[in-house]
């Protein structure tokens, strides 16, 4: 059923958003969040809402519930639910159909469930309180939903507490909670974004199955085109609160029209350099042998062997909890190792920061995933980048200023940014500042811990391209920690795959990605959604076979 255009029927649309305008107040100014969006969804249809962070997707999704975040107001347009404008009725009225006629599935199920109540109590609550069901019928329906969502042991699932089930199961439980009153419309707001790729597939399959089984209409909000291609019939691409392109899914995947839509493929289409093997010349810069590390009694890393050559990019791939970040922390000296050794530049590396010389600290830098927390919000760019210059090289005054300028140019920013604080910069700019700060130390190895995963696709591609350029120019080595196979494909020379604190496979990029040996690597690679309609159908068919 994917890829078919749903033929126009005379039925009333489930929801009809007409020229909706929403403004929100930030920094004492009203800015347009949603700017004249018109959308309509027919019964049983799934509309994918794609866009980057700040595009207004979530605001639009919540508006479909007749809900506005505090500080936001509707300045024009209507949201017609089964023909009635719900923005015109008072809040009291709106609350009655929230959860019953229109339901919402949020990104973080952990935050949506109350940890002190059993799942079943929370799932049936709306149905009993407002949906007019008895507890018995509600529980029976919940049980059906658990089965449809392929939850394990559906009979007893409801008796568990939120912390007793996995992240993927909890996300499916939230879908059950949304479906309990048999709503006509469900808003999915990035329901799989916080999950690991292998879990994401399971949840995607469940969500799609339940949508099809119950014939409910849905708005599926995501930033990931590959995901939306698996579930939606139609896609609307949102940018700066406006719909820039709207078309059936197959059409948008094959022939995107708007340049912005095309740019969503940015990382996917980065030129892959198959031949050039960087580094590998001479002795490796970093050689780890038999490394182990513990948190208390828990062993997080077990017999790790890894080498990073000079001027080489090694990607460390794995899911959350696999220990890849911990390995990064051991290398920069934030975590003590319990066995094995780390040889840096031919000499064993001291365990923790306090025992390393300033000269050693300078050579190994780290860049974090979230530039928001990695940059002090109270410091200007001048101070952030200038501090390592003063600390390591004793630069002050005009010479320091000149070097800061140079570094800003190196990361493709300019002197207009020098007096700003992080709050006055965009996400991509902030990450560039963090990179400039690392470069200010004149390092030989940079540990990049998921540095592009919080960025939008276009910005991601720009930052990656810049990192490659810097490597060619400065000869710096990267240890690139990531969960994103697409990123690995774009920049890595070699790949190491981690699972449960061990490296299960490592080797040249082409070898690992094209002919994976370990089962886990294969599973990981198979779980990454393709940018193609019908990929999920293929997976389901393969499993059935």
């Amino acid at each position: 059923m994917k890829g078919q255009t749903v033929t126009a029927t005379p039925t009333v649309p489930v929801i009809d958003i007409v020229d909706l305008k929403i403004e929100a107040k930030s920094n004492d100014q009203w800015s347009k969040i949603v700017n004249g969006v018109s959308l309509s969804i027919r019964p049983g249809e799934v509309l994918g809402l794609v866009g980057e962070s700040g595009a207004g997707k979530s605001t639009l999704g919540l508006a479909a519930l007749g809900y506005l975040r505090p500080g936001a107001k509707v300045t024009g347009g209507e949201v017609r639910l089964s023909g009635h404008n719900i923005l015109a009725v008072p809040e009291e009225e709106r609350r009655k159909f929230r959860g019953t006629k229109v339901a919402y599935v949020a990104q973080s199920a952990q935050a949506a469930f109350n940890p002190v109540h059993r799942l079943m109590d929370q799932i049936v609550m709306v149905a009993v309180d407002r949906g007019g069901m008895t507890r018995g019928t509600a529980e029976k329906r919940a049980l059906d939903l658990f089965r449809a969502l392929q939850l394990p042991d559906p009979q007893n699932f409801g008796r568990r507490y939120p912390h007793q089930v996995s992240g993927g199961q909890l996300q499916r439980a939230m879908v059950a909670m949304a479906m309990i009153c048999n709503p006509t419309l469900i808003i999915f707001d990035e329901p799989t974004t916080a999950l690991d790729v292998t879990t994401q597939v399971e949840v995607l399959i469940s969500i799609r199955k339940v949508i099809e089984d119950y014939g409910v209409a849905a708005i599926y909000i995501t930033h990931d085109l590959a995901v939306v291609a698996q579930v939606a019939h139609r896609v609307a691409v949102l940018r700066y609160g406006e719909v820039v392109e709207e078309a059936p899914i197959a059409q948008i995947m094959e022939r995107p029209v708007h340049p912005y839509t095309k740019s969503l493929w940015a990382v996917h289409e980065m030129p892959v350099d198959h031949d050039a093997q960087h580094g590998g010349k001479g002795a490796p810069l970093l050689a780890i042998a038999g490394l182990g590390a513990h948190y208390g009694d828990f062993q997080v890393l077990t017999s790790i062997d890894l080498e990073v050559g000079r001027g080489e990019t090694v990607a460390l791939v794995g899911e959350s909890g696999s220990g890849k970040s911990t390995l990064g922390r051991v290398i920069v000296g934030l975590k003590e190792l319990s066995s094995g050794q780390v040889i840096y530049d031919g000499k064993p590396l001291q365990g923790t920061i306090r025992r390393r010389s300033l000269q050693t600290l300078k050579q190994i830098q780290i860049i974090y995933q979230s530039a928001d927390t990695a940059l002090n919000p109270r410091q200007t760019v001048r101070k952030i980048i200038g501090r390592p210059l003063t600390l390591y090289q004793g630069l002050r005054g005009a010479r320091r200023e000149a070097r800061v300028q140079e570094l800003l140019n190196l990361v493709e920013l300019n002197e207009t940014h020098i007096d700003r604080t992080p709050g006055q910069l965009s996400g991509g700019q902030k990450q560039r500042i963090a990179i400039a700060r690392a470069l200010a130390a004149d390092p030989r190895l940079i540990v990049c811990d998921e540095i592009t995963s919080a960025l939008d696709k276009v910005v991601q591609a720009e930052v990656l391209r810049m990192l490659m350029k810097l490597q060619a120019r400065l000869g710096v080595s990267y240890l690139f920690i990531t969960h994103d196979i697409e990123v690995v494909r774009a920049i890595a020379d070699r790949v190491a795959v981690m699972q449960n604190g061990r490296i299960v496979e490592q080797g040249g990029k082409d070898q690992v990605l094209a002919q994976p040996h370990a089962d886990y690597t294969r599973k990981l690679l198979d779980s990454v959604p393709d940018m193609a309609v019908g990929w999920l159908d293929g997976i389901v068919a393969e499993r059935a076979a």
Partner: protein
Amino acid sequence: MQQSLEVRSVAPNRLLRALKLVRSAPPTAKFGMVVVAIYAFVALFAPLLAPYGEVEVVSRVPFEPWSASHLLGTDQLGRDFLSRLIFGARNSISIALLTTAISFVIGCLLGVLAALVGGIVDQAISRLVDALMSVPDLIFTLMILSIFGSSVTNLILIIAVLTSTRFYRIARAAALNVASLDFVEHAKVRGESLLWIAVNEVFPNILPLILSELGMRFCFIFLNIAALSFLGVGIQPPTAEWGSMVRDNAALINMGDITPLIPAAAIAFLAIAVNFVVDWLLNRASGLSEEG
């Protein structure tokens, strides 16, 4: 007092922002700021404003009633009451300010360091602070002052140490949140010293929270000093101080004269004004978001 704190040694664009901020304040806060400004003005220019000297005996008659030459009459030794009131502002406010500043520095520094280091250091300081806080401030001060003698230095030190426990608590709690952020970790990886991290990375981020506590503590210190002076162990004569002025002239109340209540009212008025400003700052600090 709050204004002068906010604009201390900052770039001009911050000064403008502070001005804009002041203009957007609610009427109560504006009223408070005006009152605080008047007190500060009187304290600064006391020698110019006061008609007579601080300890100058101007009349042979003690407790002279209000007249054209002595607007508020004279006190028990025949000194001009208005002049003493004006000099009293200078003494009381400057001593309270100094005490607040010392306790602020001690409390914040220890609090931030405890949060950064953690472990045994944190435990040791925190339990010591708990012990100090468990003794009622006023009684503790009275005890120490009666042992070591009542000098202004002793007074300032003992109150500063006791008040620093409050700053410690708040600074530590706020710093714990900041200390777990990546930029603090990055500073450690960079090889910065603990003191540098505390002052440059953590402190600027917890300042908005502590600022309101600063105003509140100033009020309490001010009242404490007045109360101690009223009890006779605070600031010693002949230095003019509002608390002791109330005590020394209290006999007048029996005769239906309200003059001794004027310094008491001056104390209360300043406390209320500072509280208005603090309330507003507290609201801002706990509000949705800080200016980016």
